[in-house]
C-alpha cells in the first residue's frame, strides 16, 4: 500500500508533463545541432543495449501479466487443472458475477468502506495540511511525523491496530474502561464495528501522503491573494472558503485519484486481520476475489480475474469522473 503511494508520487505527474518533455527533446535536437554532431551522437545499438535489461524485466513481469490478466478473465482457468489454462468461455464469468449475490454483497461492503475512508482521509489531510501551513518553525518535524505511518510495513501497521483494538488489553478498551464504559465493543469481532475499525487503521496508514500534497497545494497558492482578500475585509473563514478550497481543487482531484483505487479495491487488512469476517461484514470485493483465486477449492483464477477486471474498470471509471470534475470550470 505504501509502496504504491510513495511510488505514485510521480504516478500521474507524467500525464501532462511527460508529453511536453518528450516533444521538446525530439523537436529541438535536430534543429539546434549541426548535422555532423548529430551523426556523432547516434548510437542505435548501444541505446538498445542500455534499455534492454529494464525493458526485458518490465515486459516479462509487468506487461505480460497485464495482457494475460485480461485474457484470463474470459477463461474458466482453475489453477489445479493446468489444462484449463486457455479454456475460453466467452462472457460466462461476467454473466455469473453480475448474477452472484456474493459479489453484490461484497460490492456493497467495498462501497461502504470507501465512503468511510475516502472522505475521512480528505478531511483529516486537509485539516492537518492547513495547520502545518500556518507554522514556520517545526514544519519539517510535522511533515516527517505525518508521513511516518505510510512507510511502515502494512502488516505491521494493521497488526499494531489489532493490538490497539484487542478486547481486553488493547489501548482503546483499557482507556474506555478507565472512563467507566462497562462493556466496550470487541471492535474487530463485531459485525457493526469491524469495518469502521479497519477503516480507521487504513486512514491512519494512508493520510500522510495526501497531507503533503495538500500542503504543497497550499504553499503554491501564494500570499498575494490572501493579502488582497484581507485588504478587502474578508474574514479568515471567507478566505478559506473562497480562496483556499477552490484553488485546491486540482490537488483534491489528485488525492482522490491516488487513494480511490487502493481503498475501493482493499484487500490487505482483510487478509491480515479479519478474513472477511465477522459474518462477511468485511468481505470486500478485493478480499472475495482473492479468496476465490488463492484459497477456495480449485483456485478459480479465471473467475477471480473477471471480478478483478470489473473492479479495475469501475475504479478507472471513477478516476475518469474525478479527472473530469477537476477540469470543470465553476
Amino acid at each position, binding site marked *: 500500500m505504501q509502496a504504491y503511494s*510513495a511510488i505514485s508520487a510521480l504516478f500521474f505527474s507524467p500525464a501532462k508533463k511527460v508529453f511536453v518533455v518528450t516533444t521538446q527533446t525530439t523537436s529541438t535536437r535536430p534543429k539546434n545541432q549541426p548535422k555532423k554532431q548529430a551523426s556523432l551522437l547516434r548510437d542505435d545499438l*548501444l541505446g538498445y543495449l542500455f534499455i534492454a535489461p529494464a*525493458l526485458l524485466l*518490465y515486459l516479462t*513481469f509487468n506487461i505480460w501479466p497485464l495482457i494475460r490478466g485480461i485474457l484470463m478473465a474470459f477463461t474458466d482457468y482453475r489453477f489445479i487443472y493446468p489444462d484449463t489454462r486457455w479454456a475460453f468461455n466467452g462472457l460466462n464469468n461476467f454473466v455469473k458475477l453480475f448474477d452472484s449475490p456474493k459479489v453484490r454483497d461484497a460490492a456493497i461492503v467495498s462501497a461502504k468502506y470507501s465512503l468511510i475512508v475516502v472522505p475521512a482521509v480528505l478531511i483529516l489531510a486537509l485539516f492537518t495540511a492547513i495547520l502545518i501551513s500556518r*507554522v514556520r518553525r517545526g514544519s519539517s518535524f510535522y511533515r516527517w511525523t505525518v508521513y511516518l505511518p505510510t*512507510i511502515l*510495513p502494512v502488516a505491521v501497521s494493521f497488526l499494531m491496530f489489532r493490538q490497539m483494538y484487542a478486547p481486553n488489553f488493547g*489501548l482503546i478498551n483499557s482507556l474506555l474502561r478507565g472512563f467507566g464504559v462497562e462493556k466496550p465493543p470487541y471492535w474487530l469481532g463485531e459485525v457493526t464495528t469491524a469495518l469502521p475499525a479497519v477503516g480507521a487503521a487504513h486512514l491512519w496508514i494512508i493520510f500522510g501522503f495526501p497531507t503533503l500534497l495538500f500542503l504543497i497545494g497550499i504553499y503554491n497558492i501564494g500570499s498575494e491573494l490572501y493579502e488582497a482578500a484581507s485588504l478587502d475585509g474578508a474574514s479568515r473563514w471567507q478566505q478559506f472558503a473562497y480562496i483556499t478550497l477552490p484553488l485546491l481543487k486540482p490537488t483534491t482531484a489528485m488525492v482522490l485519484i491516488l487513494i480511490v483505487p487502493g481503498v475501493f479495491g482493499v484487500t490487505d487488512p482483510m487478509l491480515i486481520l479479519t478474513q472477511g469476517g465477522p459474518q462477511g461484514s468485511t468481505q470486500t470485493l478485493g478480499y472475495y476475489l482473492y479468496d476465490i483465486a488463492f484459497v477456495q477449492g480449485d483456485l478459480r483464477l479465471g473467475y477471480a480475474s473477471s471480478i478483478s477486471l470489473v473492479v479495475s474498470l469501475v475504479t478507472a471509471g471513477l478516476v475518469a469522473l474525478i479527472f473530469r470534475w477537476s477540469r470543470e470550470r465553476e
Partner: protein
Amino acid sequence: MSTNSFDKAASSRGQSGVAVWLRRYEILPHAALAVVMFVVLLPILWLISSSLKDAQQFYNHPSELLPRAISLVNYQYMFTAIQQLPVYMTNSFILAFGVTAIQVLCAALAGYAFARMTFRGRDIIFLMIVISMFVPRGGGLMALYELMNFLKLRNSLFGMILLFGSHLPVPIFIMRQAFLSIPKEIEESAMIDGASRWQIFWRIALPLATSAMVIVATLAFVGVWSDFLVTFTMIDRDSQLTISVGIRKVLTSGYETATANVPELRGQFASEAADAAMLLFSAFPVVLIYALLQRWFMKGITEGAIKF
C-alpha cells in the same frame, strides 16, 4: 497564512498583547498540531511502552504510556524463542538489497538512454512505458501467480527480486529527469576529448545523478520491505518468507511451541507485549532509513507532486 508584515502591523495595532503573542509564536496551530501528532504517534508510542513492560505491568496497567519499570523480557524472549525471526529478517534484507540494486542499475541505464542517446523509437518506447503505468491491472495478481509458477520462481527469493525489480517506470522517469538536468556541454566536451559513450555515462553522467539514485534506492528499499500482498501470494515456504509477511504468521499462530524453547521465561511476559516487541523489530530497518534519509524521501515525494 497571512504572514506578511502589513497584516501583522495591522493586527498588532488593534489587538491586545496576548493576541499578538499568540500570533507571533503561532500558539494555536502548534497546539492543534500537537494534538494531531499525538494521535498519530499514539499507537507507536503505546507499542514501544508495551514492549518494555513485563507481564505483571502489562496486564495491570495496559494503557499507561510510561512504564513504571523498564523490562527487556519481551526482547529477550523474542531473540531467544522465536527462531524464524532472524530467517525472515535475512530474507527481507536479501530481497530489499537485491531489488534496490536491480532497480538502480536498470533505471540508470535506461534513464540515460532515454535522456541522452539517440536511437530509433526512443521516445515512443518511453511514452509507452509511461502510459502503461496508468493502465489498471485487472487480474494482474492472478496472471503474475501463473507466470511465477510457470517460471518456477514461486517460493524463490530470486524470483521475487526479479518481480519487484521490474517495477521500473517511476525509477526510469526519475533517472531520466536527472540526466536531462545535467548540462549537455559537460558530456559534449568529454566526447570531443575522445571519451566513449560508456565512459561518459559511467564517469561523468552517473556521478552527477547520485541524488536521483539515492531517491530511487530508498523508494525501492522501503517499498519492497513493506509489501504484503504480493509476497504473501507468491511465497508460502517458511524458509523464504520476508519479515513483513512472516510477522503476521508469528503473531497469529500463538507462542505455545516457541515458549517451550525458553521455559524459564514462561509467565514473565505478556504475549501482547511480546507481539509489540516483534512488530517494532520488523519495522525498525525502514524507520531507521526513513529517519536517516529524510531529506531524500521528502525530495522524492514532493518533486513528483510539484511537477503535476
